[in-house]
């Protein structure tokens, strides 16, 4: 075990996978220079973790700014023997390759009756809350969740980042990895050895009795902080981090809600047709009888992301808004809680 950041864990998983299998290659814009620091512990050319030096230009490939062909070529390469990791940097750039994602990556295996398999990982980072403006702040995983054939991971901790990304690279199906930039610097003890966290298995980040909070990606630490604060108020909160959005560990969510009878979903994506909507709908359909209160969603409202911190700050789920929602479903006003 050693202390590792979320970003370091992302690098570590890729390092392991590159060393374990020659067919794994990485390509993307500015990956040679490791501009985003996501393929190594350090940025120095000399440090261990400098992928270009370790693996050479055949396997670490700078691409032109051509997202459509990056994604399509990765699909074609995956169908013919390589196992590419594509670094798409910002999640807001995925739209440029949407046709390739939906019509090729997600459909080819199915359409061709199983002739193809597509072992490929598409990594992208969600830069939100950082004053990068509307063109760089999206959290677009819900639209990909609506596309059958893709798997989607959204790790919230360094350990999960390493284990899920490694499992994603091992997967013979296409996986999109949505990484939360607000979490890049978070640290914890991480197993230095090789391990995988199976896709589709949620993590109970905190156990509790009164209410279940399903929290996604950057909302997980906020939910935990809310749970901590609510504990002092006498509300016992269980926090479930699905980690994988497709396939989603529906059972784990239902099990928790059947016990607590209450659900809040904290999701940094936009509200309408977001991940929170899906979790809510699953529970309203499959654990209705256990529900003792309305299901509350704490999401980013259906607004684009403004640049000014004075405007942006208020938009994402925070420990305060999550705690308020929990109080709400527990039938308590904030005033009562404070009293």
């Amino acid at each position, binding site marked *: 075990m050693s202390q590792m950041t979320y970003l370091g864990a992302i690098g570590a998983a890729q390092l392991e996978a590159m060393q374990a299998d020659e067919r794994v290659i990485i390509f993307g814009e500015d990956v040679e220079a490791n501009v985003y620091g996501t393929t190594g512990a350090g940025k120095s050319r000399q440090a261990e973790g400098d992928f270009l030096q370790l693996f050479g230009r055949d396997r670490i490939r700078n691409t032109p700014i051509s997202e459509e062909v990056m994604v*399509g070529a990765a699909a074609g390469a995956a169908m013919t023997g390589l196992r590419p990791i594509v670094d798409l940097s910002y999640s807001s750039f995925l739209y440029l390759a949407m046709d390739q994602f939906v*019509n090729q990556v997600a459909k080819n295996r199915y359409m061709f009756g199983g002739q193809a398999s597509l072992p490929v990982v598409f990594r992208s980072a969600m830069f939100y809350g950082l004053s990068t403006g509307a063109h760089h702040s999206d959290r677009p995983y819900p639209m990909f969740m609506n596309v059958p054939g893709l798997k989607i991971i959204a790790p919230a901790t360094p350990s999960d980042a390493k284990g899920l990304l490694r499992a994603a690279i091992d997967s013979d199906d296409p996986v999109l990895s949505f990484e939360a930039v607000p979490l890049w610097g978070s640290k914890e003890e991480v197993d230095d050895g090789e391990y995988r966290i199976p896709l589709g298995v949620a993590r109970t980040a905190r156990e509790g009795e009164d209410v279940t909070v399903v929290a996604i990606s950057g909302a997980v630490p906020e939910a935990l902080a809310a749970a901590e604060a609510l504990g002092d108020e006498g509300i016992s909160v269980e926090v479930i981090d699905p980690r994988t959005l497709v396939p989603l560990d529906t059972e784990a969510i239902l099990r928790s809600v059947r016990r607590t009878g209450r659900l809040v979903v904290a999701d940094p994506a936009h509200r309408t047709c977001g991940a929170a909507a899906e979790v809510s709908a699953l529970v309203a359909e499959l654990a209705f009888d256990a529900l003792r209160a309305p299901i509350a969603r704490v999401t980013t409202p259906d607004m684009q992301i403004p640049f000014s911190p004075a405007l942006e700050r208020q938009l994402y789920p925070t420990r305060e808004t999550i705690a308020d929602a929990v109080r709400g479903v527990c039938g308590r006003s904030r005033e009562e809680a404070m009293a």
Partner: protein
Amino acid sequence: MKLTNEELLEMQRRMLRIRLFDERASKMVKRGQIPGTVHTSVGQEAQVVGACMAVRADDYMTGNHRSHGHPIGKGSALGPLMAELLGKATGICQGKGGSLHLADFAVGSLGESGIVGSSIPIAAGAALSSKLLAQDRVALAFFGDGAANQGGLYEAMNLAGIWRLPVVFLCENNQYALSTPAATVTSGRIADRAHGFDIPGVRVDDGQDVLAVHDAVREAADRARRGEGPSLVEVMTYRFHEHSEGLRLSTDYRDAAERDAWLARDPITLFRERLLADGVAAAEALDALEAEVADEVEAAARFALESPLPEPEVAFADLYTDPSAAEVAA
């Protein structure tokens, strides 16, 4: 390039296969035996077969909605293709793909695409595998004149150019995209567009001549295999049928005189005459070849018609390799 007599006859055989397969499919659409529609390559056989026979059996290939010719040209067995058109369990894609999405990995066919232009990047990726895994394979990407206005083509040409990927970009310029004349929506000449990407771009003006197409594509494929990178080959041709079977447009978007002139240059008739003139085969042998192919197509049709439909649960397989994920999805 000098081809053996066997190779020349194989060209004619494959052109005939495409012709008769597509004519048969056309009939089956009319009879309601094929769900949806099909897009035939009738009239374009020389362009398809000339290209397919200029690459190796194990070379990669991607295609488009005008989809049967490519795998047939590449050597696919006809039965599973025809069964696929009928949505049968024995179809090459188990009935899941249909006419628009044929794929036959056994002959390097990585998939026809219903989305215009969308399979071109796939070919670039296959070429990357070939290069990095030292497979010595070329990727042949078929697309139409209409697709030549999709941005993805230029991204792919650029990527293949800088990485010297073994790709042959093959534009089937049949001069129309559905009802739209290429001349009205295409600025400049398609072949010339390669030059700005520092890629050879050649135009085969007589795409009804299977050998002309073959030679141009062979040169591009050889170049690619030598590690010198991609090429663009534009082939001028014409589709003899309507855009798709059953489609009827009131507009006469194709000039009658133009159509007649092209119809008079049937690639299969032209090549037959050439084979006769060059003494490659006698008329009887060519007749026999035609009969053989006709039987083959008939057998494929029978196979398709007699095959069972897939069981409904087949719809729920093959989304993921991983069955547990599929279960969750269903």
